[in-house]
């Protein structure tokens, strides 16, 4: 259930070079890693990428446990993928046979290869979100999407909505918890009965929560208008993003790691 004051997202504040890099550089570097991992076609290549990511994990000064937690939800996918390959692939030398169970060399290496690939993909995305605050990410996404403005894609509006939403998630979380507690005190139960019964039990929570959220939106609009907000044109930021030499270097290193992995 919703815990009041529970943190959301995966940002882990710390002082490190990775935290200080330009969010646009980090988003692009992550994109290079994620697309690049699919170009790496061998186990030694993936191990090289894994070693590079391990160095980055250490450099980020984020406790490794934080990353292990992000890997947990994909554990089932990793295990199932590896198991399917190991049990059902019929390529290469037979290593083990017992009744209908057959383990072939090809299946074993393919299972390991795919499991490693999934873990590296999740780890690459985890590095980005652990070292970059959600607001910085939203700013970075806005800048990277702004060329699409030419095709009338509302990049500024999307980023603005995301930033406002980030600000109000904790507020609404608290409100949801309060309303649910108030209903529970009146004897409401949210965990009983079938799907429709439970959905109906949520109706007295959803109505005040939704009306309250939309009322807040009106108040916020008034506050923004009275301060002269007029859309993205010519709007400045409190914290300007600056792309520096070290950001370009980070991109070059990411490309190099992938190129080396693809060759191995």
């Amino acid at each position: 259930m919703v815990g009041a004051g529970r943190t959301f997202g995966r940002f882990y504040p710390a002082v490190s070079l990775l935290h200080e890099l330009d969010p646009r550089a980090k988003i692009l570097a992550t994109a290079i890693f994620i697309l690049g991992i699919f170009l790496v076609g061998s186990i030694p290549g993936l191990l090289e990428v894994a070693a590079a990511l391990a160095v980055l994990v250490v450099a980020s000064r984020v406790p490794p446990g934080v990353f292990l937690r992000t890997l947990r939800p994909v554990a089932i996918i990793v295990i199932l993928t590896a198991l399917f390959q190991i049990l059902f692939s019929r390529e290469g030398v037979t290593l083990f046979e017992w009744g209908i169970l057959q383990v072939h060399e090809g299946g074993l290496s393919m299972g390991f290869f795919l499991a490693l690939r999934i873990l590296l993909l999740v780890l690459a995305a985890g590095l980005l979100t652990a070292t970059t605050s959600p607001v910085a990410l939203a700013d970075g996404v806005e800048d990277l999407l702004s060329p699409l403005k030419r095709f009338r894609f509302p990049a500024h509006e999307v980023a603005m909505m995301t930033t406002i939403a980030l600000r109000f998630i904790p507020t609404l979380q608290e409100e949801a918890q309060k309303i649910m507690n108030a209903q529970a005190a009146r004897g409401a139960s949210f965990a009983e009965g079938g799907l429709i019964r439970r959905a109906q039990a949520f109706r007295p929570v959803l109505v005040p929560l939704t009306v309250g959220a939309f009322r807040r939106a009106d108040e916020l609009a008034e506050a923004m208008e009275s301060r002269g907000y007029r859309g993205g044109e010519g709007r400045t930021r409190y914290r300007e993003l600056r792309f520096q030499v070290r950001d370009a270097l980070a991109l070059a290193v990411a490309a190099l790691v992938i190129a080396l992995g693809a060759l191995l």
Partner: protein
Amino acid sequence: MSEFRDVRVLTEAALAIALAFVLGLIKFFKMPEGGSISLEMIPLILLALRQGWRIGMVAGAAYGILDLILDPYILNPVQVLFDYPLPFAAMGLAGLFRPSARGAVLGCIVAVAGRFICHFISGVAFFASYAPKGWNPYVYSAAYNAAYLVPSLVIALVVVVALLKALEGARPSRRQREQARPAS
């Protein structure tokens, strides 16, 4: 986009996104490989019904990006697009219908169908790169995604009409004032 010139529309979309995220944390049931039976779609559908499909789709895409920023699971580059921005942009399809009881029901069904198609494509793409040869990715992906989207649709149908009515009473949008009743 000219629709967003009205700051009120922008903030309403932002709060709908925040509410969708908060409701997404209340899970009725969580699937092992992502996706869960939850209420997260409801605010986005309401927004689309109140402000039209264009704003609904942009806000949905923004919700997808927010979800990606906060909790990314990237298994395949194609899957990112079809699991984050696109399925929630599909929530905007509800805005093709009138903000009436009948329109809300039809809107929910069409929006969830759109989301299903996106996750279905993503599932096939995922399976194509990870499953052993000879497995049928289409059946698996359809079954997997229907398993949580159909119950989520049922929940949305149970509450969405009441919520739309409540909002019409408290804060009617322009679209609601003009189109809530069928023109006679």
